[in-house]
């Protein structure tokens, strides 16, 4: 088995109002950052997964995301995987 590290970015789907992002944007705009727009806030998850190969690792993480880590009704997620050989 190989240990793969996964980095998962979770964002609200496009078109769903991100009230948190909007509030931060308003705060920024009320400061000196009047040129900042489209603030969206998501979640970032790191984890290690044991698998035979990269494909299997990806499949496991994808299932974990769709079952628990993200809510597919309102969130999209992106997974990036690395084996830990270089570390």
């Amino acid at each position, binding site marked *: 088995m190989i240990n793969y590290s996964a980095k998962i970015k979770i964002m609200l789907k496009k078109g*769903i*109002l991100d*009230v*948190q992002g909007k*509030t931060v944007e308003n705060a920024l705009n009320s400061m000196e950052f009047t040129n900042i727009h489209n603030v969206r806030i998501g979640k970032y998850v790191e984890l290690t997964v044991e698998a035979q190969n990269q494909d299997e690792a990806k499949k496991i993480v994808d299932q974990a995301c769709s079952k*628990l*880590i993200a*809510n597919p*009704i*309102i969130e999209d997620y992106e997974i990036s995987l690395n084996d830990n050989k270089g570390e």
Partner: protein
Amino acid sequence: MKFAVVVFPGSNCDADAFYAIRDNANQQVQYLWHKDTKIPTNIDCIILPGGFSYGDYLRSGAIARFSPIMQEVISFANKGGYVIGICNGFQVLTEAHLLPGTLMRNNTLNFVCKDVYLKTLNFNTAFTNQIPKEKILRIPIAHGEGNYYADNDTLKALWDNNQVVFQYCDQNGTVNNESNPNGSLMNIAGIINKTGNVLGMMPHPERASDNLLGNTDGLLIFKSLINKLS
């Protein structure tokens, strides 16, 4: 009839629900612990109470949904058993896919804690049959994530099947933006599943069940179920 109230780590309305059933509705009630793996066979209705199960970590209800007792609650519901999810309990029910849609952060970002008015849209359910037809319910809410969201197809199906049970409204029963406390689509405050045995609602009927508190509108929901099963 006999109720059970599920206690998750972080539930904080479990004792209120227990009290409302035992002392206000005068029914038998027991607790079920989140680690329990069996629902006693004499239980007619399970209440998933309000609170912050598992600290609301990741998303409200997301972790609770995978607790041992929830696997039993899911099979209980799928066999036609009655389930009421209140506030955090509603969030758990959507995460468990026993009810469609999801509850997002309030559009105001505020934690809203106040009485709201509710219009009942469907009086022919196990949970609403004792509500007088013209009655506008006044029931408290207390949540930061009660903003009901579902995609258009899901919303349309809910509407077409009379599954939208409660809408936020004003004192006169008018459903409008001003009476929407959290940004819920179509002012949705409570829905049932297609088969009518699972209710999820953000307002807290157990907090409006005792005469001492000056409001017993919430008791009508429990009385409806008792009436249905008696």
